[in-house]
């Protein structure tokens, strides 16, 4: 639970966004406001097409809002920076660089030996030891996600923006990567903003879950996730919370 005296890392204030289309203006985001405290893990869930990725692009600095502001540590966000790294579903591991070269990519202005040492440290942390010289096309989908994660971690960002990071993986690998992520987040303190359509993933990882409405999107509800890690997803209180979130999304769940 973020206490009152923990500084606000991400401040989203009254953010709105529209796109011009052939049929007129598409109103995507409608005055969204929320805050993420330092070290907090916040998940955003919402129906598909509700503008989750649009919101993420704005918060991460890749896109400008039409109205409202995004503040990172109190400073208005106008461009992406290495203090907050985006990990998206499609992934962006460079296929022409080896694993080690990928991990060293964001390490500007350091000595080569330094970079290698850091890269190898994080490669080991995510379970890529022995794969440093491989090219991405020689790796499996799960391994690629580990490269992506390690490449983000190695620059020690304060914030991880995760946009459906593991959605392309099969269910088993998805669960395994979530556990890996939790293990890493327990070691390295990051503020995390996670976008997902998977309510279970949100409850598994986050301390707080924001539910978005359909377009034009607003924050419809906010749930605290008061369970200590490791979380037992099949326990009754977790299932109750899951049902409550699903109800907000307009889905009745009969499992609880």
């Amino acid at each position: 639970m973020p206490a009152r005296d923990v500084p606000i890392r991400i401040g989203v204030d009254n953010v709105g966004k529209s796109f011009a289309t052939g049929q007129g203006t598409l109103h995507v985001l409608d005055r969204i406001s929320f805050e993420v405290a330092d070290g907090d893990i916040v998940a955003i869930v919402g129906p598909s097409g509700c503008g989750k990725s649009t919101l993420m692009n704005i918060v991460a600095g890749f896109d400008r809002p039409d109205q409202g502001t995004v503040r990172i540590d109190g400073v208005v966000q106008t461009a992406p920076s290495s203090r907050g790294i985006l990990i998206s579903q499609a992934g962006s591991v460079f296929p022409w660089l080896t694993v080690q070269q990928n991990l060293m990519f964001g390490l500007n202005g350091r000595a080569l030996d330094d970079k290698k040492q850091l890269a190898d440290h994080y490669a080991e942390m995510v379970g890529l030891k022995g794969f440093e010289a491989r090219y991405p096309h020689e790796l499996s989908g799960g391994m690629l996600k580990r490269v992506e994660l390690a490449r983000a971690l190695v620059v020690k960002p304060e914030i991880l923006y995760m946009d459906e990071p593991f959605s392309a993986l099969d269910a088993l690998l998805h669960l395994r990567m979530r556990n890996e992520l939790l293990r890493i987040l327990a070691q390295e303190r990051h503020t995390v903003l996670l976008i997902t359509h998977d309510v279970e993933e949100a409850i598994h990882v986050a301390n707080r879950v924001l539910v978005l409405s359909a377009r034009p999107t607003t924050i419809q509800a906010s749930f605290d996730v008061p369970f200590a890690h490791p979380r037992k997803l099949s326990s009754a209180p977790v299932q109750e919370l899951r049902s409550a979130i699903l109800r907000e999304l307009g889905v009745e769940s009969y499992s609880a």
Partner: protein
Amino acid sequence: MSGLNRVLPAIAVIAVIIGVWWLVVIATHSVVFPTPLQVVTGTLELIRDGTLWQHIGASLFRVGTGFGLAVLVAVPLGLWMGWVNGAYVTLNPLFQMLRPISPIAWIPIAILWFGVGDVSPIFLIFISSVFPMVVQTVTGVHTIEKRYLRAAANFGVSRATLFRQVVIPAVLPQIIIGMRIGLGVAWLVVVAAEMIALRSGLGYLIIDSRNAGNRYDLVVAGMIIIGLIGLLLDGLMRLLEGLKVVRWRYAR
């Protein structure tokens, strides 16, 4: 065994063509058109007096120089036009207009400007191979996936790193495709250019053999050698596709 099975049909087709050719020449009692055997003896004659190597050397030198200059110009120019939209908007219409002009159409101008020495064919090769390589390089830059550029922006890397580690490696496969196309065109053009102007080269060999006493055995020999060298040059370019830095493009 599978390697042999792959080339066997191709060899069979060539053997059939040579057989038919031979039969037709004998059946028609042609005095001008050579039999395959006459082509082989003609080739041996050229090898023995050393002129074959001179002609091959001259053609390869012109292609090497013209094509090399074209690479040096086309790759930086293509990267610049692909990256800077103002350059693209300004120069692309001009290049699209120059590109469909056959290099052969430049021959009179080449002779006017550079005479009948080595410079004319080198200029023609340059003209013919520079445009496809510029176009391929520009396409390469324009088709870099946005997620990679976004990642580079996210990590806040320097411009030098962006170019060295993202843009150039991403475009390299397209550059190599452009080089393959460019070298193919260059080889077509050098022969055509030599047929018109000069004193050496495989194109000159063909025209000279015809003019100096209807030596059609040497004409056909020259054609076959041109084909074989073209095949070899394309094979060399294909080797580039196996380079480690571009293999990602062909994997999966």
